[in-house]
């Protein structure tokens, strides 16, 4: 197990390094000079040169890469060109919106997807199964931003139950902050719930037709115990494996949903950064998100190995 963990950690480090380097290289080939962008078109060449020196842009690319990588190793993502504060601070601030949003959407996906998938598998071939499958297909095909728009129309504009957009900071009351994240979390989570329903249904069907379930039933084990002890436990393994993929989808989806609901999260931050050509900020957010996604897949692999004793660590 330790050898497995060690090798998996090495692969993780290499992949993160590759992903970060990809970002650096893409931003290196950008036409347009960041110094010029900061100062505007009217800036004098000498002023531009001064800013270039201050940002280290006059150095050859390999030196800049080495510096950037060195900073990255010390978790220093640089300073935003537009905001003038460390990128890390901006990300940390926006995570207060994006993190709870993703967590709420994930909770919705698991709470809806797992029971619904089990339910459909138990009643395979029935009308209920058909309805669940139809919900899953429709949920996957529905764009989150489209769903979000209509959630706003119904629950904010017509019923006036929840805010149509914007975010009340946690400091001004957790209840109101929660309320402003509720509709976005539903818009974000439904598609994930739908895809999880399919995974759980298919996994549960496989377990239900397994020999050990037949044996358990033949021994007279009650149906509830069969579901709890065999079906649910084995289906959860497949849930654990897809959850990291689902979180990656949620993080990407948050970029759009935050735009629909004008939430001050990581997604709107990165979009603004692109529009402002704030390269250190774009770079920082992209590297951050990619690392989180890679870290999740590492955790899943390790968790998977723990959950399923059949997996060998070789």
């Amino acid at each position, binding site marked *: 197990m330790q050898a497995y963990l060690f090798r998996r950690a090495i692969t993780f480090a290499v992949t993160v390094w590759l992903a970060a380097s990809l970002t650096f290289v893409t931003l290196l080939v950008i036409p347009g000079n960041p110094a010029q962008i900061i100062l505007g078109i009217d800036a004098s060449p000498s002023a531009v040169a001064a800013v270039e020196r201050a940002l280290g842009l006059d150095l050859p690319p390999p030196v800049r890469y080495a510096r950037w990588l060195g900073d990255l190793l010390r978790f220093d993502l640089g300073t935003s060109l537009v905001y003038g504060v460390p990128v890390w601070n901006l990300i940390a601030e926006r995570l207060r919106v994006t993190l709870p949003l993703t967590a709420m959407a994930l909770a919705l996906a698991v709470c809806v997807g797992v029971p619904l998938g089990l339910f459909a598998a138990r009643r395979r071939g029935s009308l209920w199964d058909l309805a669940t499958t139809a919900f899953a297909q429709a949920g996957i095909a529905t764009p989150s931003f489209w769903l979000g728009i209509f959630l706003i129309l119904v629950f904010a504009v017509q019923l006036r139950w929840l805010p149509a957009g914007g975010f009340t900071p946690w400091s001004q009351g957790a209840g109101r902050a929660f309320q402003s994240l509720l509709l976005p979390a539903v818009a974000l989570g439904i598609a994930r719930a739908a895809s999880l329903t399919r995974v759980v249904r298919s996994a549960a069907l496989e377990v239900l037709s397994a020999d050990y379930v037949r044996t358990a039933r033949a021994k007279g084990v009650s149906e509830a115990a069969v579901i709890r002890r065999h079906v649910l436990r084995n289906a959860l393994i497949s849930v654990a494996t897809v959850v990291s993929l689902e979180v990656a989808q949620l993080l990407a989806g948050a*970029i759009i949903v935050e735009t629909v609901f004008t939430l001050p999260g990581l997604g709107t931050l990165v*979009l603004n950064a692109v529009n402002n050509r704030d390269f250190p900020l774009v770079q920082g957010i*992209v590297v951050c998100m990619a690392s989180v996604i890679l870290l999740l897949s590492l955790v899943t692999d390790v968790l998977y190995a723990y959950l399923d004793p059949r997996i060998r660590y070789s």
Partner: protein
Amino acid sequence: MTEARTRGGLAAAGRRLRGQWNLTVGLVILLALVATAAVSFFYLPHDPNRISVLNRFKPPGEEFLLGTDQFGRDLLSRIMVGSRVTIVVGVIAVGIGLSAGVLLGGLAAQYGRWVDETLMRLMDAVAAYPPLLLAILLASIMGPGVVSGMLAIGIATVPVFARLVRANLLALLDAEFVQAARALGASNARIFWRHLLPNTVAILLVQATVAFANAILAEAALSYLGLGTQPPDPSWGRMLREAQDFLVFSPYPALMPGLAIAVTVLGLNLLGDGLRDVLDPKTRRR
């Protein structure tokens, strides 16, 4: 004898096709999409970009089948023109993902060792970028537009295809018919093109269908964010974004393009599921 066997084969294929309602529905939706785009070159009910204040926010009716938007433009005509973008982006993005994926996955499987290790770690690194994030990064470099969108969605699809091809080829490389070909002195390239690739076509077709659906969703999202198709060209995602601010006046300008996206993606996903059931007898119907 031959005839009987053929009929028996056909009947078996027919039996497998029957009850394949998802394949049928998916195919119908895909054909409808292609037909819509094709017809849009010859016939449109109205000029998709003509602004008419008098016709603002018309609900669906006789003159405007799906209603009009905030500028009085015909929604049906705009959706018809938008379907072209959808198809082009989908086809090109999947084309990029498929060709690069087959190449890289093939190289990794056939050469193994450090080639395999390097390419697959690179694929892991690319896969760590959600397509949308990659598109945002590219849009910041190349400027927003359809091309950077297609490229980003295409690149983001490469790892899936590469991993799929690699995994399937690794299983095939041990097969007797491949070893026989190798023993007869066939080159790596010949083995790849004549023996390995034809045996992965079915799996790739299924994956391509699903990737097509995902590309359409990604393109719509990019256009919604203003990073895809630029105005005044209609695209489904853009139409949604523009309609959002006028939701209280009329829901139709937002409803219709969203419906077009959802139905198209649904159709392609159904088609993918159906193809998987038909092409791969190993998967039981679930």
